[in-house]
């Protein structure tokens, strides 16, 4: 069996006396599509923030592609090949959709002052074809700030996917999106990520979305991993039904 792409060992985060995450040990194989579920305050976002370097773990270790990335900052984890999207879309509101993609390209590759122009016809082509893959090319010249929330989230995900990162974390990609648009939203977001060979972790509250798009589920509860494994098995787990899904019939 090959080595995992990504692995956390005994990850822990405390804020004063509050334990936000405790003993989180997860192995992620390359190409997996994993849903992270859990009620509010279960530690899902804390986990994502630790993995991407926004928070430094109080204890434990994060390994990515065999390297220890514990304690790196967001810029360094991004350069290492881990990108994320946000629960509330983080885009550059005054710029057009195409410009947002161009900034994503430049930020990943070219942060130096030089005589060479950063916005080249090649980069515009790359940005346009990326927008195409995410179904956003018709709004390429629209300012991102004027887009509806759902479209903004798609742009956010498209920006996270720029440069073909190896691991992409999506923080609640379908929150704030109307119920009948959720599946379409996931279809347009997941397919191009899959095609690029990215390993995907996404936080999700809608179990229909989880069943349809994940091949593994990790359930968080009070900062710890309650269950981890096959979708059908985890979602039928008695404790998961009781504490995470909140199914009164369990």
């Amino acid at each position, binding site marked *: 069996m090959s080595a995992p792409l990504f692995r956390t060992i005994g990850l822990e985060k405390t804020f004063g006396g509050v334990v936000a995450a405790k003993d989180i040990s997860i192995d992620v194989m390359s190409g997996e599509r994993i849903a992270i579920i859990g009620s509010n305050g279960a530690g899902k976002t804390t986990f994502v923030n630790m993995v991407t370097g926004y928070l430094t773990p109080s204890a434990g270790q994060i390994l990515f592609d065999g390297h220890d990335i514990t304690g790196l900052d967001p*810029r360094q984890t*991004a350069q290492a090949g881990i990108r994320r999207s946000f629960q509330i879309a*983080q885009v*550059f509101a005054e710029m057009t959709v*195409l410009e947002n993609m161009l900034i994503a390209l430049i930020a990943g590759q070219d942060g130096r002052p030089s*005589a060479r122009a950063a916005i080249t016809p090649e980069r515009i082509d790359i940005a346009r074809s990326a927008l195409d893959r995410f179904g956003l090319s018709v709004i390429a*010249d629209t300012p991102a700030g004027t887009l509806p929330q759902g479209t903004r989230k798609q742009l956010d995900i498209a920006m996270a996917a720029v440069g073909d990162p190896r691991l992409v974390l999506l923080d609640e990609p379908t929150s704030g999106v109307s119920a009948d648009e959720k599946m379409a939203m996931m279809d347009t977001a997941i397919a191009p990520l899959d095609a690029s060979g990215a390993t995907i972790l996404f936080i999700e509250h809608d179990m229909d979305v989880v069943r349809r798009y994940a091949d593994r589920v990790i359930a968080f509860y009070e900062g710890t991993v309650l269950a981890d494994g096959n979708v059908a098995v985890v979602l039928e787990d008695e404790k998961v039904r009781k504490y995470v899904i909140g199914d009164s019939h369990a």
Partner: protein
Amino acid sequence: MMPTLDFRRDHLFVAVLALLVIVGFFLPSWMRFLIQTAMASGLVALGVMLQMRAGLVSFGQGLFFCIGGYAVGLLAAKAGITDVALLLPAAALAALVIGLVLGLLLSRYREIFYAMLTLAVSMILYGLLVKAASLGSTDGFNIPAVSYFGFVPDQAARPDWSYALTGVVVLAGCLGALAYLRSGAGAMLDAVRENEIRLSYLGTSPRVLVFVVYAVAAVLSGLGGGLWAISSGHVDPEMTYWTTSGQFVFVALLAGRGSVVAPVMAYFLLELLRTYALDIAPNAWQLILGSAMLAVIVLLPRGLWSLVARART
């Protein structure tokens, strides 16, 4: 396409500015001197404008204007080095070194803290210069006539030479700023202003970008100060006083962030307005200036350059 990142036509605007500089050669000498000092100061306003693209207001850009001016002044008047081939690089270098050191500290701060810290540092220099009796204290000191790559123009031709030097260096400064804005570090300044967190998660350090823009602005301002010193033949601590810095901010706001030539042209408009306002209303010229500023802010929030930008689309 691309209202914020599109500088493809700026070479054209620099060419227009070059043409205006040449036209200036044939204008009356008082007007030409106005253009000359406006261009030198415009380079400093350009430095302020670059920082504004990153959402940062430097309320102490006079610091580097003064450092550039005093570098030229000290070398020419005290060390006997009077050739522009050494004076201007020295002005730029002095500003760069101080800019790099202060940049390490300032790149950690944003918003009002950045504005106040830049102001504080510039006033520290003011305080030091005022105390320095050997440098003429508040009066400053005069600078001897300079030579141009070994050539010493006679008295009558001096204004022509210093005008030409200012024109060439300011145009080069505009082209340099343009190359910077088109490079990766410059193109991302708007992204720093809008959403730093997002930018870090895309793989870039906003702090490094702020550090770089501060240093670039320092060099431009140092050059502006050096040119101003050569043009006026005099330096004094007023160059780093807060009202001087305020004027650079005023001009950067007046101009807008749309083009590298906008601050230079806006500085000239300001000087022109001030001259005529003084002429028309010697006791109330500030009232006219203030009203003009108010009108621009209310009617053209993106600065005078938005008129040009609007005409393009």
